[in-house]
């Protein structure tokens, strides 16, 4: 029995919105009919320490933690953290590191997570409407700007 799941590892440092980004994907994946498991550790999130969140969705999900070498996507908000956890990625997995630099050039660093979620959305079979609902419920602030940045990321991801 092979699991048909998609696993995404989000990482960065405290205060970058790592947990929020994985929450958005978690809600969007749930709305599009998947079982979802997400794992994270709180406490150090606002104190500059390493923060990672594991998110797995599909028909049947067992472990809330991703096994090293089995992540389909690695979404890092900080390059060193991405390098540190690169061993989690599958050999044919997608590392979103190339898009991080673009995201870092945004005028407001608080939107790095939304931009990278946009990029990720272009690679996943989750309907646009579910992403928007997820952003509205989870982010709940600066919705218009988040939508715009998300769309920008989505267009870059496809290109």
């Amino acid at each position, binding site marked *: 029995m092979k699991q048909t799941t998609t696993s995404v590892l989000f990482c960065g440092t405290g205060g970058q919105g790592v947990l929020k980004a994985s929450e958005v994907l978690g809600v969007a994946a749930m709305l599009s009919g998947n079982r979802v*498991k997400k794992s994270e550790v709180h406490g150090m999130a606002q104190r500059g320490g390493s923060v990672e969140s594991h998110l797995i969705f599909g028909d049947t999900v067992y472990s809330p933690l991703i096994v090293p070498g089995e992540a389909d996507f690695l979404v890092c908000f900080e390059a060193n*953290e991405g390098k540190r956890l690169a061993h989690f990625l599958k050999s044919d997995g997608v590392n979103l590191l190339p898009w991080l630099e673009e995201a870092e050039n945004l005028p407001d660093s608080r939107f790095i997570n939304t931009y990278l979620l946009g990029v990720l959305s272009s690679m996943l079979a989750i309907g646009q409407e579910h992403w928007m609902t997820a952003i509205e419920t989870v982010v709940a602030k600066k919705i218009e700007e988040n939508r715009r940045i998300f769309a920008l990321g989505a267009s870059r991801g496809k290109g």
Partner: protein
Amino acid sequence: MLLSGDEALARGAYEAGVKVACAYPGTPSTEILETLSGYPEVDTQWSVNEKVAFEVAYAASIGGVRSLYASKHVGLNVAMDPLMTSSYAGVRAGFVVVVCDDPGLHSSQNEQDSRWVSMFGKLPLLEPANPSEAYEFVREAFSISEKFDTPVLLRMTTRVAHSKEDVAIGRRVEHQPFEFKIDAAKYVMVPKNAYRAHAKVEARQADLAKFADTTPLNHLEPGTGPVGFITTGVSYYYLKQQFPEAPILKLGFSYPFCDEKIAAFAKSAGEVFVMEELDPVIEEHCRMLGIAIRAKHPSFRVGELRPELMRPIVAGEAKVEQPSTARRPVLCRGCPHRFVFTMLRKSKAIVAGDIGCYTLGSAPPLSALHTCICMGASITFQEGLRRALPGRKIAGVIGDSTFVHSGITGLINAVYNKAKGLIVILDNSTTAMTGGQNHPATGATITGKPTKKLIIEDVVRACGVDNVDVVSAYDLKALGTLITDRLAGDALSVIIARAPCRLIDRDSRPAPAYDKDKCKTCGICLSVDCPALTESPGGYVAIDRETCMGCNLCVAVCPPGALTRVEDIAS
């Protein structure tokens, strides 16, 4: 809904009709009470400490309403006194004791296995393996509590409490309160009554063991393969992922043990492997039953399990320690604690620390804290160290919430026993490390309602301390003078260094100016461990202007004046 284990447990308790819920914040259990406080039907509180929380919630059960206590593992240690005798006195309405362990020490001072508490206290133990089970098990726990007249322990670990999944929720069913009955034989634990109660506890243990063998909370999943597993908690899902076809006996009601189910499983499976995180609890019990089992190498008793460890563990391998490459957390930008630590370090005092954000000040380059054991152990350690090391400069630092939790008793002890020395209360007006919860000295309740505010300096004076100073934590000069003076003095002194937590007060001022030509590359500014200051080539520094909050500590410590204050135009 996508719910964490904590949120799902709170939702389950709400639906089960819980009326009173008490806790002191502690990662990873904090969100249980935070979630419950959102339901107006539930009377919730941040209690002063875990012993108080336990007693208030337990008494509500005796009063006839369903009640709940929640804390992290080390918090339950504080509540052990009432817990041990609550087992004898039993309950009226259901009483559930939630404890969240932290295998892997994500945010704790030890990785104790609280399953032993259920054995020590002779209390039934439920262990959900994911948020959905947390939601379901808490309801079971209430009914088991009422059926067997006992508090019920519900244990989660960080990976259950802080993992999230889609949980199908229902509606609250009001629980009709039981009539309160005066029953001295049951609730007055004097020796004669307690002796009889103990006999009842032993009989209850036998009844619970029978229940363990019949409840579907312990279930057998048939399967194929050479190895069958006995497991509990999140390890079950790690096994399902790695050995999806294997037969598994999953313990949800894990104490008292389901001996018959264990024996039957062992007979049916080829080889039995016990997969459990931390201590060898199930393992030792199986061996005591005389059942041939295999279990993890003892090196795996340290740290948490992960899915990728399942196969090496079953293969009998020892743990290979991987050095942590994670970025260490630091005090926040602009944090007022950094000012106090800068001056304490300068004083060369031995500093007894406590539990809170400020424990982060122990790491180099600040290296300003030298002990940290448990809540409240700064004031008492200051006293004890001084008794061992007369003539040495010794200080203790404690946060505001921790002071109220268990610092006050130590302070009274110090005064009573004529101790000398310096205590600094780092008063940032919140329980910061767990995310900013209210406490008695913030003047607001768990729901944010105003309440009588505890004035810390009044309490300190009332304890009998004569030298009490309140100073802004940002006033480096005043802090320095006071710390030097009080450490040299021959009395007990308390300095309250006050400034709001920077996670609450986010107002920032302009970053300082930096004149590279004046910089002597001495590195003193870097030694305050500010996340906005980094070393650049040649020993110079770079200021991250987006991160800097303009606290100007680096300016104050810069000997050649290379860093200078930039006045806020708006002010």
